[in-house]
């Protein structure tokens, strides 16, 4: 019985949405610019699943599937070496450039963490789309915390499907080295993230 309901729900849902319409309209409404092509308009499974209002009801079994797939794709860095250089990591966190057609594709991409998070508490130009990460290191540098944070940065959907944070590792925005550096920026006791709160 449950399967029948689910199949009916699927048919109603998919016919109401005309799944291809937004894609086709975008394809006819946009042109390649510099190194950014209309190839980017295509959605992967996760993007398609996550293109609903926050208030929409979530298909839980499907969400669990996507969460698992995301988790499976997260690599462990060689030698379980999660932490790089916090000073380099700070630069990655500050840099908001990368992958916009107005950006220089020969420069390294930034992580743009300050767009959405508070980090160094003395930096006042921080966004609030994500939670404050000031004092993040106080949560401890144990293996579980390192692995959790690494996974979160590599592919945030492994824990929170439809999170609005980019998939820095899985989408190839940041390199493994850049991610290790950002990790150090979050965890290192010397990092300004972990300076005592003013």
């Amino acid at each position, binding site marked *: 019985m449950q399967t029948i309901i689910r199949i009916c729900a699927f048919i109603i849902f998919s016919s109401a*949405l005309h799944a291809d*319409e*937004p*894609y086709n*309209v*975008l394809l*006819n*409404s*946009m*042109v*390649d*610019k510099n190194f*950014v*092509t*209309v190839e*980017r*308009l*295509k*959605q992967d499974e*996760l*993007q398609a699943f*996550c*293109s*609903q*209002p*926050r208030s929409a009801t979530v298909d839980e079994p499907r969400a669990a599937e996507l969460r698992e797939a995301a988790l499976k794709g997260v690599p462990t860095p060689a030698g379980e070496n999660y932490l790089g250089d916090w000073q380099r990591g700070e630069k990655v966190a500050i840099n*908001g450039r990368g*992958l*916009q*057609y*107005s950006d220089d594709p020969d420069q390294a991409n930034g992580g743009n963490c*300050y*767009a*959405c998070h508070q980090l160094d508490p003395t930096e*006042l*130009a*921080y*966004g*609030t*789309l994500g939670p404050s990460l000031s004092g993040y290191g106080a949560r401890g540098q144990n293996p579980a915390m390192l692995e959790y944070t690494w996974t979160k940065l590599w592919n945030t959907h492994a824990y929170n499907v439809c999170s*609005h944070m*980019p*998939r820095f590792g899985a*989408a*190839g*925005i940041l390199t493994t080295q850049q991610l290790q550096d950002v990790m150090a920026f979050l965890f290192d006791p010397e990092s300004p993230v972990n300076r005592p709160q003013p």
Partner: protein
Amino acid sequence: MSKGFFSGLLATLVGLWSFTAISETDGVFDEYRELMGDDNPAIFVIYDGEEIWFTPAGPKSVSLAQCDLGLGPGVVEGAYAQLPRYFSDAQRVQDIEARLEYCMTHLQGRSPDKVRANAYSQRGELGTELEALVAWIADQSSGLTIAPAQAHAKERSAYTLGESLFYYRAGPHDFSCATCHEQTGRRIRLQALPNLTTHQGAAAAYSTWPAYRVSQGIVRTMGWRMRDCMRQQRMPELIMGSEASVALQTYLSVNGAGGSMAAPGLKR
């Protein structure tokens, strides 16, 4: 007052702003806005726009004076506040930019590609014809209620389409408009982000575009705003007057319906 005086004053204000902005989200800019009062430098662009409207141009050497913006040929007052709308001659829903393109190509005989290519100012340019026209036309709706037409089926489907585009996530960062504009009271770095899914947020945003951008010294249109947010979203370039641009603007104007037009606005 002269244009030079304004540019000088503005340069000073922008300078001050960039040094002090760190202190508070929009507070400093709001003070400048107050200080400027009615002296929005867009006024000069508005005059230009009116002149352009009545000046013969294009291969056919006719003016736009007979262009129908939805309220009948040549009626400009109040037209902007009711856009986007369905136009039976074009058989599609159009925003002000798509409509002007239609009039420029059909009345004046200009090439649509050229109109589109010269729509928005490039960096360092002093404003385009289209920007001036939109500034004047929007000013002719100032104080009027945002009331986009939603009687025609195509107007309603433009809204539904706009809504689905608003939530459409794609590209390397997985962003949609909703990533940045679906919550209230958030900001990116220091820039306040309107919640465009609410009436209040959409009305405040929609009513103040086109806008004079102090940092750029030119008037920008709502179509340009759509294109530039798509750029931030890591998407390719949005075509002026395209179906997606019009649908997104329909979504915003319908959400903001009932609000009061106050364009050209003044933005950083």
